[in-house]
């Protein structure tokens, strides 16, 4: 399947959301956005709203599910958690990612030397 640039970016964000939920357990949209920013050591300043597009896509694919709950400071918020098939997907994606980044790394090193 041919994927254009925005697809890759979307996919990257989706992967990060999945990973975050896998690592942190159920989180609301704000929590996920914050977490991604923190992990990337604020290098990735996302427009936090874009997280919601990712959440809708992942929900449609049944990789995550959302439930209403209450946040730490007593606000009503929707909490997302990773599903079983989401975990499987994450696994595959992680392997893919590693493979691709290894390959890309190799290619880049090759280019450096040449």
């Amino acid at each position, binding site marked *: 399947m041919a994927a254009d640039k925005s697809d890759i970016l979307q996919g990257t964000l989706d992967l990060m959301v999945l990973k975050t939920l896998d690592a942190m357990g159920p989180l609301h949209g704000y929590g996920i956005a914050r977490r991604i920013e923190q992990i990337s050591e604020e290098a990735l300043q996302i*427009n*936090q709203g874009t997280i919601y597009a990712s959440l809708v896509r992942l929900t449609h694919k049944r990789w995550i599910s959302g439930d209403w709950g209450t946040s730490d400071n007593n606000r*009503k*918020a*929707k909490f997302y958690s990773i599903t079983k098939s989401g975990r499987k997907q994450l696994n595959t994606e992680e392997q893919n990612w590693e493979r691709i980044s290894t390959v890309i790394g190799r290619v880049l090193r090759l280019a450096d030397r040449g």
Partner: protein
Amino acid sequence: MFAWITTLASRTRTWLSPRGVDQDFATELDSHLDMLTDENVRRGMPPEEARRAARIKLGGVTQLKETNRELRGLPFIETFFHDARYALRMLRKNPGFTAVAVLTLALGIGANTAIFSVVYAVLLKPLPYANPNQLVSAFAANTQEGVPEDGTSYPNFEEWRAQNHVFSELATINFHQLTLTGRSEPSEVDTSVVTPEHFAVLDVKPLQGRVFFPEDGKRGAPPVVIVSENLWRGTLGADPKILGSSIILDKRPFTVVGIMPANFRSPFINSKPEVWIPLVQDPLFGSWMARRGGHWLAVFGRLKPGVSIAQAQAEMDAICDRLASEYPAENKGWTVRLVPMQKEIVGDVRTALLVLLGAVGLVLLIACANIANLLLTRATSRSKEIAVRVALGAGRSRIIRQLLSETAVLGLFGGIIGIALAYAGVRVLSSLMAEDLPRLNAIRVDNAVLAFALVLSAFASVAFGLVPALFASKSNIQANLREGGGRSGESGNRRRVRSVLAALEIALAMVLLVAAGLLLRSFSKLTAVSPGFNAEHLVKAEISLPQFQYSTPQQWIAFSDKLLARVQAQPGMKDTAVAIPLPIVNGKINLAFDIVGTPPASEGESRLADYASVSPEYLRVMRIPLLAGRFFTQQDIFSASRVSVISKTFAQRYFPNQDPIGKRLNFGFPPNGDADREIVGIVGDVRDVSLGEAPGPMMYVPNAQAPFWGANLVVKSTLSTDAVAAAIRQEVQKIDKDLPITEVGNMPDFIDASVSQQRFRTFLLGLFAAMALILAATGIFGVIAYSVACRTNEIGIRVALGASRSAILRMILRETLLLTLAGLLVGIPCALAASHLIGHLLFGVSANDPLTLATVAFILAAVATLAGYIPARRAMQVDPMLALRHE
């Protein structure tokens, strides 16, 4: 892998679920915003500042909601429904525009669909037999004598069949009528005379009983017949014990062995055959089976699987070479030509039908151009609405989608009404159509035709919608918002496109009008042609004699003598004659002849002439002029010496610079062939095949010396057709109450019917040309009227500055004429090219006929001027004060 299916299912679910989801998302975003604000406050921002920063961090809430909505549901369908609803509202708001556009489109689509249903049934639909592409016709052909397609004789057919390895089966067929008696009124039944393999070739099963066995085709076999379901249910009263019982054909009992289903028909025949009999049993053709000469059997076969028509042709060529050297007298120069059966059945109707389809397609194009023009006009006045939408954030593609939805709705309505029109159209077409149009019975609006109509309306809506939509979406927002109505603000580009469209309509209309004009002139020339005889007050009737009862030539002569004497004795019916065949009605019988005392025809020279056996009164009844010598008299009887009369062309071609009278010809129709006949007279030429075909050489013999087993009566009488027919009926019944009388009617009607295909296509093309003319005229009218409306201001200023009314009129008319001229300049070469395409449908008119071209150009210019004059008059009456205040 199937993630997209889950996604689609989930999206559909959300799309179908109630609107609460929107609310949910809003709450979610709210809490997100709150959390962000809280954090900002924690970091020490003042609350107001914290809220603002949070908003920026989150992004535009409305936009997020919109994206969410699109991702969540089925935005494509949603927007489509939304657009369609909106389109309906817009169309309802402009009932005049909608009515004109839908009606124009419906006419275009309806006409196209109706014509396509004919084209589909006649040209495209596979033949109603199993594996129809294996079926081929085999013709005898003789290039030296210029005979492209002819039948063959039974002995030759037998050799073709026995020697080939390419056909799984080969069969022959011929048609005529037999008289069915003993069941009710004597009636003529359409009879297919076949070899037993006929049914095997077509691979059909009987409804009841069996098909013919090879033994049924052998000499001495008991006579058997297969009847059609229609005949069985009709005349035979659905007799349950019909199988094994017998019916009387031509006074001879035939055992019924099978019933064929009602929908089955043999190829090459339009009327429903009612009975099938083996060739060997046929009273007429059966007696010809032993002769190797002659070309009277139509041969067709089924190729073996995997055999191509070229392979089959090669093998048949070899067989024909052998036959030509074995039987040079009959077969020298004759080859076989294989033609796919479908192609053969369709024949020369193909061109005419494709021309009609092309013509009706042009009408639709003009209709589309017209609607596109209307839409462009409307888009101009809607430019403010569109500018507002663009300003509110609608993208270009969104605008185009919206406008195309409107045209799609238009197209849909046009299509639906068009299909309704097509149903009516097909009914009218079928009734108008010449009865001899092949496969006439297959014409109907079926699924394929409906699919065509739908594709056509979809295509049409894109065709007329795209250009206006592209233009509208490109408009300059700022200018349009400022201008408001956008009347005088029409861009030069758009005006140019509209003018080009109008000129194009003129050009297309020109093509159609020229084609229609040429066909019309051809048709009027064709019907004005003198057939060589006078058909006025001529009534004809056909009586055929059952061969088993009337089996000898003497009996035939006695019958026709008795009949003639009786009919001539009736008051007012003195001028009655007998003839076989009758010109135009029966076509021709073409026979070879020799000139006695000269060497036989050399190779490459054809000595063929059309043959007619007539009674002495024939010349007087038909008003054919006698040019030299004498015509037949009552003395030219069977026992007297053989005589003949030839036509003017015959004399000129075969006796140049000689007096043919007194010379002798050797020719004859079986069973009176091979006799020397002295030429006693020369008569005028007669167009015996059709009005359109130049008369060939003809030779006449007296009926008494060359009788047939039946007769055509021709009566010249001032009595009414009905009175003459009744008198004939009465006299025939007095001689033999079991004789059916058929094909009774007025000679002019028969001649009329002979040109029905030409009339049909001329009428249709004329109709389409008229539609094109009206559409083009409204197109011009629309462009000029709109141009005048846009220029009200300018015209007002001109008048205020002293321009006279007539100057204004001239200015507008000049614009009209320029458009027309541009259209004609493009149209004339196109029309010339098109008329060459229909060249061989023309009669007596050249494809470049300057008169037609000039007339059409003049008519178009006149109509266009008239269409432009109406708005021009409005321009003339513009009140300068009003116009100046207009802005």
